[in-house]
Structures are given as C-alpha cells and as structure tokens.
C-alpha cells in the first residue's frame, strides 16, 4: 500500500470514530426510549430487550396529560409557521422600502435595525414582559400567554437580521427592472409582489430556515411570554416542564426528547442543502 493510500485509510478510520462519537447521544436516546424505567437503571447503555417498549413509551407521551405533547406540538407548529411567514414577508417589504427610498429617515431606520443586532435578549426581556402587561392595561389587548403576543415578539426580534439580509440582497437587484414596470403602469405594491418578491426567493428560503431553527427550538422567549403550564405551550417548554416536575423518569424523558428532535431531523434529511447554506450564510453576514 502506498503511503498516500495509507494516510487516506487512517483519515477514514479517524473520521468514522469521530462520527460514532458524535452520533452516540442520538443512539443513546433511541436505545433508551425503548426501555422501561427499571431496564434503564439496570443497563443504560445496552440494546433494549424488547423494541416494543418504544411504542408503549411513545403512546404514553402522546396520551399523557402531564407532558401535553400533542397540544404543544400543534402550538409549536402554529407559532413557527405564522412567525416565519410574517417575519419573512414583513422584513422583505421593509427591506425593499429601506433600499429604494434614499432619505435620511430610511437610513436612520436601517441603522437602527442593524445596531439592534448587538442587543442581547437578556437586556430587554424583563421590561418586555412589563410592557406587554402595560399594553393590556391600556388597550385590553392580551399579549402575554397568547399567540398574537408570541408572534409579535418573534416578528420584532427576527426583524433585525432579516431586514439586514434582505437589504443586502435587494441592493443587488437592478433598479431598471422596477423602472420598466413603472412605465408599464404597475403600481408600487404590484412591483413588489409581482416583480421583486419572486426574485427574492433564494434569500427568502435562507431567512425562513435561519429563523425557523431559532423559533422552533427557542426556550427563554416562550417561557417569558407564554409562562410555564399556561394554555399555550411550545415543545421545548413542554419537555422542560415535564422534566422539571417529576423525579427523573428517564424512559419517558428520553422518549419525549426523541419526539421533540424528530421533526427537525426529518426536515433536515429532506432539505439538507438549503438548511446548511442558509445557516452558514446567516452567520457570515
């Protein structure tokens, strides 16, 4: 064997070892989701004696009122889809206006969006809750423990990065395209929805993915807005409640984590390229 091939072989073996190490936690989750509480304590690393237990555990999670898996799953879906569509659409509209209107005000607003990216959630979270309570007092619009409050918060927190990225992309779209449409008699809204929006598709996908991973997995913001044990719970909240409220029932905890991970992993299998590209682009900006 030539030294070059030997090197490659060593590299291949090293990669496989690292890969197994990386996948071990997932394996642990799957193996132990198929055990009952006793079997986990007796043997936390071996293969389960009966894979049928997996189904029993899943059934327990789905039906257990203590974890509220199904309602939380539905709430997570509602919050994520509505937030994502609204973040992406409003940021695209806002970003377009900020690129195309060259006034001092628009520059100032854009700079404000960009500067706000430095603001950590911690510094706004306590006043945010107080402010939402205040809004309710004055307008009677409930924002805490509601979908509208949760989604409004996501649009607000998601807008900075999203507008920044749309702004960067729209700058590259030639103005002549829009001018030609104006001459053809298109109104401004028509220009945006029929000409600009279709061009934005790739960056739209990036924005949705970037915000999607964040919203779906987010814990602290829903914790503050929705509270623990309220009517509306997201999946991470439900899992955290479940773990926090009992003596460690690892069989059910691990099954619940598995079921919380599954949607993201399934989505990743189908949209790998877009997800990776979206997340990497978002970081480099």
């Amino acid at each position: 064997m030539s030294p070059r091939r030997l090197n490659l072989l060593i590299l291949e073996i090293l990669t496989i070892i690292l890969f197994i190490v990386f996948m071990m936690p997932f394996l642990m989750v799957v193996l132990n989701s198929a055990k009952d509480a006793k079997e986990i304590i007796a043997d936390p690393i071996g293969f389960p004696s009966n894979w049928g237990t997996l189904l029993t555990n899943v059934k327990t999670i789905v039906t257990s009122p203590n974890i509220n898996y199904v309602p939380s799953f539905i709430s997570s879906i509602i919050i994520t889809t509505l937030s994502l569509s609204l973040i992406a659409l409003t940021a695209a509209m806002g970003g377009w206006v900020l690129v195309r209107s060259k006034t001092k005000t628009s520059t100032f607003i854009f700079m404000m969006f960009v500067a706000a990216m430095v603001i950590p959630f911690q510094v706004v979270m306590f006043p945010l809750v107080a402010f939402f309570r205040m809004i309710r007092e004055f307008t009677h619009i409930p924002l805490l423990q509601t979908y509208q409050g949760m989604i409004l918060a996501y649009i607000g927190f998601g807008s900075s990065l999203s507008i920044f990225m749309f702004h960067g992309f729209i700058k590259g779209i030639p103005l002549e395209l829009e001018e030609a449409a104006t001459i053809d008699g298109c109104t401004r809204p028509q220009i945006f929805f029929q000409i600009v929006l279709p061009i934005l598709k790739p960056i739209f996908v990036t924005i949705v993915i970037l915000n999607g991973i964040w919203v779906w997995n987010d814990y602290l913001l829903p914790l503050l807005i929705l509270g623990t044990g309220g009517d509306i719970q997201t999946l991470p909240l439900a899992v955290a409640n479940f773990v926090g409220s009992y003596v460690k029932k690892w069989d059910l905890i691990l099954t619940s984590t598995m079921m919380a991970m599954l949607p993201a992993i399934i989505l990743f299998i189908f949209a790998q390229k877009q997800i990776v590209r979206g997340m990497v682009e978002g970081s480099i900006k």
Partner: protein
Amino acid sequence: MNNQGMKQNNRLVNALFLAPSLTAFILVVIIPFFMGLYFSLTDWNGAIQDKINFVGLKNFSVIFSDVKFHYSFLVTTVYTAANVIVINLVALTLAMMVTSNIKFRNFYRSGFFTPNLIGGIVLGYVWQFIFVNAIPGFAESMGIESLTSSLLGKGSTALAAIVIVGSWQYAGYIMMIYVAAIQNVPVSLLEAAQIDGANFLQRTRAILVPLVAPAFTVSTFLTLVNSFKQFDVNVSLTNGGPSGQFAGKVVKATEFLALNIYNTAFTRNRMAEGQAKAVVFFLVLVIVSLIQVYFNKKKEVEM
C-alpha cells in the same frame, strides 16, 4: 395621476410596507430596551402599578460588590474561552476531514452538523442522562474507577461537561463555515505547490492557513458571542449546580451570566438588580462587537 400625487402615493406605500416590521421592532426591542436602561437606575420590582423611584447607580454598586455576580462573570469567561478554543479546533479538524478524499464525506458532514438543529434545552436533558447514567454505567461495567461518578457532581468537571455539550452542539456548524472557506481555496494553487515539491505541512501553512484566516475570525467571534450568551444548555444540563466556594462564599459553580441574570430577577426577586446585570452584560457584548468591527475594518484595508 400627476407627479406630485404619485410621489405622495409612493410615500404612503412605503410607510405601509415598513410599518409592520418597524412597529413590531419598536414595541418588542426599542421600547423595552430604553425601559430597561431606565429600570436599571430605579428600585423597580417588576410591577408597573407601584411607584418607581430613581436610585441612580445604586443597583450597579450592589452588583459590583456581589460575589455571586463576580463568580458568574468569571466562570462565563472561562467557559467562553474554553468553548472558543475547543469548538474551533474540533471544527477545523472536522472540516479538514470532510473536505478530504474520503468516502461518504457528505454523509459525515451532515452527521456532524445535525446536533446544531436541536435546541439546547432538549440536548441538555439528553446529555444529563449521558453524564449521570450512561457514562457511569459504562465505566462500572468496564471497571473504570475514575468515571463511575457523574461529571456533573463537581464544579470543575460540570463546567467541562457544559463545554463538551456546547462544543458537540456547535462544532458542526462552525465546521460548515470552514468547509466553505476551504472549498474556496483554488485547487490549482494547491496542485501547483505540490508540483513544486511542497509537502502537506508546507501547503497547509503557506496556502490553506492564510486563505482560511477570514473564516477563523468569523468563527471566533461567533463562538465567543454565542458562548457568552449560553443559557439553554446551562439550564437543562446543570441548572447552575453543583454548589461551590468562591472568595469564601457559597456560589453556584456553573451559573453563567445569562442564568444569573434570570435567577436574580425571578428566583431571588430582585428585578432592578437583574436588569442592571443585564445592562452590564449588554455593554460587554457591545465591546466585543466593536472589537469585531475593528478587526473586519483592518482586514478590508489589508485586502
């Protein structure tokens, strides 16, 4: 429509298009931000009905003499430093592996990236099981005495445990940034160097390292900021525990800043102090960002 009317119409459309995102942004970020700056200078207790008294910098002098806060700052800094180093080393190694000629490299790449798709809360619980049950169980069956007790039981090892989880979660993501950089290195350049007789180390040092350097800056700041803000894994893996000693006081050994801020306000019921800590936290992040901007500017000049 005359020109004047059209202009006015355009302005209206602009305002309507910008309104939704701008309103949400002002309601959720800008107003609470300024409220927060103000609250940090008052005796605010979380309620809005009560009278709020201005107390100047009192909260700041309280938190600056708070040993728990000092410790949190210190342990967060240690965690951040360790995380930045480990993540970048692991990510760079992984990136070299998945850009080499090995079989199934795309499959491995996706695998290494996967932990990043899952939230810190969920991952923290999974790893809690691994540290508390799986590793001790494995060590017992293999007779490895040193690993039979949980890593989470002692402050220093619990900190190491969070670094392990943080790196495991994040390395695949940073790997992708390095992969993108490495793939941008022209193959012809590497081949030319090879023909000229440069060995692997020389090629790495003379070609790969300079061309991957910008990705290194991006990754360093990204991991720095994200590690400094660590909250989810902190909550679900250790929740700040176990207890430890610092400067003669009992502290929570792994209570990072974000968790300390949260606990100050909600567990210890000191909203204004929690807010003051959050303002300090914000200022540190501003400084980090300014340093990053400076580095980026410098880089632009060099290019």
